[in-house]
């Protein structure tokens, strides 16, 4: 039962066999990105857990602390912590997405990617783009809760926050891919999450204002890149709120570095640089011989 004509004849030994073609690299990036999205939409528990955790922080921690901190001119701790919770949602989703490389390695799919005749850069860029997209979506979902706690949203605010989320997600996913490239065992994964994610979140100003901290804590928050990713989001959200001066003093924004308050552009530049550096490191680390 040999078929006489094949659907597509073999083109053996094409005259041109170039190793790098840009459109092919782009197609690869898009495919790796798509796979991340398919996997994300297919694991409902992941989406759910990505929503529940920030909700817990927002409402439980938010209400709990609100009674302690009190209200200043109609502005309370819930409103203060809200941008931090949005960021937190982005960060944990981004890191988790990047860490799926450890799963890919465990289940062998990483090998399918690494032996393919594509560049490592395309694979890392696709993975990072996918993780960032998911993280941005997850973080933006949190914005829907704003009216519940009395935070006003404007279209401009939403656009700006989403863009900042995307930059933050890029930086964190690249960082996560870099870390995940060094993890070969499933068991190490939980340890890394505990040792990296929680300290980064707690030392970022997501939960408390960064003014008047003891020096050691101030230093730790300043070396944490997340600090510079969260402050601009808080700045933009607060700018759209009707905050009395007393509340602005009580819940300040801005990060002081060497006695000067960093401009917003400076903070964004730090996060951007962090993203570029870790993207380069991730490409370098990804797919070294196992």
């Amino acid at each position, binding site marked *: 039962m040999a*078929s006489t004509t094949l*659907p*597509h004849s073999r083109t053996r030994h094409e005259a041109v*066999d170039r190793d790098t073609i840009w459109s*092919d690299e782009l197609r690869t990036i898009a495919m790796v990105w798509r796979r991340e999205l398919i996997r994300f939409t297919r694991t409902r528990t992941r989406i759910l857990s990505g929503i529940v955790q920030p909700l817990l922080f927002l409402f439980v921690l938010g209400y709990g602390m609100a009674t302690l901190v009190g209200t200043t001119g109609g502005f309370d701790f819930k409103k203060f912590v809200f941008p931090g919770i949005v960021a937190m949602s982005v960060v944990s989703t981004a890191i988790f997405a990047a860490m799926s490389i450890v799963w890919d390695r465990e*289940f062998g799919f990483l090998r399918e990617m690494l032996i*393919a005749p594509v560049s490592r850069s395309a694979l890392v860029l696709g993975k990072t783009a996918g993780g960032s997209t998911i993280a941005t979506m997850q973080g933006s979902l949190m914005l829907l809760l704003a009216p519940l706690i009395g935070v006003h949203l404007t279209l401009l605010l939403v656009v700006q926050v989403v863009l900042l989320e995307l930059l933050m997600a890029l930086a964190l996913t690249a960082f996560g891919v870099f870390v995940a490239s060094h993890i070969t065992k499933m068991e190490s994964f939980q340890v890394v999450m505990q040792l990296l994610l929680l300290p980064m979140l707690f030392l970022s100003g997501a939960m408390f204002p960064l003014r008047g901290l003891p020096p050691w804590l101030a230093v730790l928050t300043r070396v944490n890149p997340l600090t510079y990713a969260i402050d601009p989001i808080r700045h933009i959200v607060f700018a759209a709120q009707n905050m009395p001066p007393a509340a602005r003093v009580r819940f300040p924004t801005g990060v002081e570095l060497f006695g000067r308050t960093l401009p917003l552009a400076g903070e964004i530049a730090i996060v951007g640089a962090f993203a570029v550096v870790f993207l380069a490191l991730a490409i370098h680390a990804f797919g070294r011989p196992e």
Partner: protein
Amino acid sequence: MNGEPLAVEADGLVKRFGALEAVAGVSFSVAHGEVFAFLGPNGAGKSTTINMLCTLARPSAGVARVAGFDVVERPKAVRRHIGLVFQEQTLDEQLTANENLRFHAVLYRVRRNEVESRIEHVLELVGLADRGNDLVSTFSGGMARRLEIARALLHTPDVLFLDEPTIGLDPQTRALMWEDVMRMRDEEGVTVFLTTHYMDEAEYADRIAIIDYGRIVALDTPAQLKAGVGADRVELRTADDAKALCALTAAGYDVRPSENGMTITIADGEAAVAPLIGATGVPVWHVHVHRPTLDDVFLNFTGREIREQSGDGRSMMQRAWTRHR
């Protein structure tokens, strides 16, 4: 083969890991459309050789060309022209079969307008045409392996490398998989290079290279390898062995007494059974024709038997021959 480059050429391939020489200089060539098997025990250097040919390991010495490309100088070109199936599974179980294949199609630059028809074609080749939209996590081990073979063929590779492709599969699934592989060779014209330590699997190959301690100790067709080991042996037990022995010796057979009967050495044992029984002149209780198996070949070249894991190849073949009696 006139003018057409060989599918695989290896010349003096060596791979050292520190002081250990895992592959100690192997040379061979594989023609287009051939099914070529590397047969050897675990640790003989089969996987290391395949890894060098697939550009996953760099040779310590020697050269190799796959699909016409040098494995050291043009690794990406080599990878684009080969299909790979590893011992361990490399599918994304959270994706459907089609999604796994589409991912592969992009990574291996299958032309956009050909992707869907190629997917349909390779799924049909392995009998999974109706499972394209099912998640791989719902597949059995055998189905997953066949999907991997389909995937390896998606980009119409010149050479399909299968590293211990049937490990962990039940005999029925293994047989099915072999049907797939042979059909692919016929329909897609792909060259198949496989490693195995199952004797019965090596039988499917056009040519077998027996590898031991990093060296090729024999390389020929299965039939030639077996013929090289010696003729068939026919064991007989009769009502009166002494009388039968005399009669057969008189008839000119090469016969020797054995523990409980006699053994006749003869070129075609099966065809000789009827004349032999006739020549004994006494009632025959038991006949057993022993053809040289690849086990004998292996034993002959390496001085030991290949270690089988499960589904012992020798006993399977013996059962088959016993049935023919």
